[in-house]
């Protein structure tokens, strides 16, 4: 009897990385969903709650109670979520048994992206044809302006999720340019439905912040408080409705606390903008930061306090003048291998 010594390549292990990320079959995902629902009911039973009305938050709380974990990374802790959230959405296999791909653009590599571009261009040509027809019949072109301010296009990440494909920045910008070109034409209302698939509504106005009502002092004077920060300075301001335009900082008059004109200008900026220079009194406390950041912090605090005294329109004007946003600029960190945040060490040839 001969013993097999030489082995053929068929016996050797397949290349592990060539097939890409692990692909899940539909049957597998369905089974996972069934198991999840069963497990949800068991868990509700264990916790003594009603299995019918057991929400995802209840599941999270139950798991955190039954399996306490001290790990810092929330993604590493035990979790029980619906299978669609755990297993990422994947494409089913794009080719049949004979190896022939289903989609005609499969060999471009980004088949859904290119097919999307083709569709959008088709709609554009449609709109142009319609426009030509209207011109030929001498009918007036529709000129209703879409509300551009209230909507935004899909972000790159959202588009990637929609197409289940990776896109590059260039591809994304080309798609957005094509959409804008489509929208710019006068008769684009025909393709309204198609365009709506790719636009999201922006929350109508940025006045999500609640304006607090005025509080009343022992003497009956109306006042309101505000907090502000800039770099490392933190300030709180109390604006009174009395009469003279006196401003006190940490118990000291502003002329003595801020000898520089620029800082005093910043303190008076919100009052001057609203035209209420002599009408309000202010007492503020500030700590941390330097002279200019303390002035900026007090400015923000006083602007926030003044919102309660003023109509909504004026609050919107203050926001558009940049008085109500927190300045996010902070000192940049020093990097290793460099002398400062940007300055590199002196270059020496040898």
């Amino acid at each position, binding site marked *: 009897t001969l013993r097999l010594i030489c082995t053929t390549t068929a016996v050797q292990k397949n290349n592990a990385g060539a097939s890409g990320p692990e692909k899940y079959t539909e049957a597998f995902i369905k089974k996972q969903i069934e198991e999840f629902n069963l497990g949800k009911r068991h868990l509700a039973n264990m916790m003594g709650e009603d299995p019918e009305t057991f929400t995802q938050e209840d599941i999270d709380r139950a798991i955190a109670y039954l399996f306490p974990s001290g790990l810092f990374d929330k993604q590493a802790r035990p979790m029980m979520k619906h299978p669609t959230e755990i297993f990422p959405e994947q494409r089913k296999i794009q080719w049949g048994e004979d190896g022939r791909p289903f989609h005609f653009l499969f060999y471009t590599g980004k088949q859904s992206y290119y097919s999307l571009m083709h569709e959008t261009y088709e709609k554009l040509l449609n709109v142009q044809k319609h426009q030509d027809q209207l011109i030929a019949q001498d009918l007036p072109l529709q000129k209703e302006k879409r509300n*551009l301010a209230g909507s935004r296009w899909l972000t790159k990440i959202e588009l990637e999720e929609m197409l289940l494909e990776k896109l590059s920045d260039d591809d994304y910008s080309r798609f957005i340019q094509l959409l804008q070109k489509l929208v710019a034409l006068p008769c684009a209302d025909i393709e309204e439905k198609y365009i709506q698939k790719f636009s999201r509504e922006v929350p109508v106005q940025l006045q999500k912040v609640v304006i607090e009502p005025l509080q009343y002092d022992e003497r009956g004077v109306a006042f309101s408080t505000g907090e502000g920060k800039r770099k490392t300075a933190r300030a709180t301001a109390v604006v009174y409705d009395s009469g003279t335009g006196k401003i006190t900082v940490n118990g000291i008059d502003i002329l003595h606390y801020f000898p520089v004109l*620029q800082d005093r200008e910043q303190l008076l900026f919100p009052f*001057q903008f609203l*035209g209420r220079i002599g009408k309000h009194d202010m007492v503020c406390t500030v700590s941390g930061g330097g002279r200019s950041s303390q002035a*900026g912090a007090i400015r923000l605090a006083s602007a926030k306090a003044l919102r309660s005294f003023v109509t909504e329109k004026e609050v919107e*004007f203050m926001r*558009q*003048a*940049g008085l109500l*946003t927190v300045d996010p600029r902070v000192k940049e960190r020093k990097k290793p291998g460099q002398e400062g945040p940007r300055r590199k060490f002196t270059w020496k040839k040898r």
Partner: protein
Amino acid sequence: RIMPVRWSRYNPSYLEPEVKKELYEKPSEELTEEEREQMELKAVRPIKAAPPTLSSSVFTDPMISKFTNMMMKNGNKVLARSLMSQTLEAIKRKQLEKYHKAPENEKETIECNPYVIFHQALKNCQPIIGLSNITRGGKTYQVPVPLTDNRKRFLAMKWLITECRENKHRRTMMPEKLCQELLQAFNNEGPVIKKKHVLHKMAEANRAYAHFRWW
């Protein structure tokens, strides 16, 4: 703290703040189409915080603040600002002297407002066309090139400051030197105007290479 590098701390969707009060006091009927669209856009987008140099008072002027920043050394804004205010004061004093000495018919032509003098002097100093080095076939040519508004203003201010710092007598104070330069520039005389004319002549002389520019 997350420290981003190489980009602005603000999201690109943030818009610049508008500080002038008059634009907000206009009733909605007087706005043009573009302004209406801008207002709607501003209502939806977030807005950056106003920088410490910007304020709605009558005394802030963007050109003056830019000039002060350029004069500043080692971050000493206090000193730069005081020098600037001393310069403006000196200009006012000199103009008032001239005003009181002048005969009746010339009193109206003398400009006393230092801000007007500053703006006019800057305008007179701005070059219209600039030169840029373009290398072709190993040789570097000086090619005449149009300049943007920002670049013109920057060059005018830079020339004024370098002129004052270097070519004057060591013992004179900066406000006096600047005041002299500004008044000379206002009357279209002085070394800065000469420098501008020299630049224009060079551009005219190198007119032949203008086709090297590809932008």
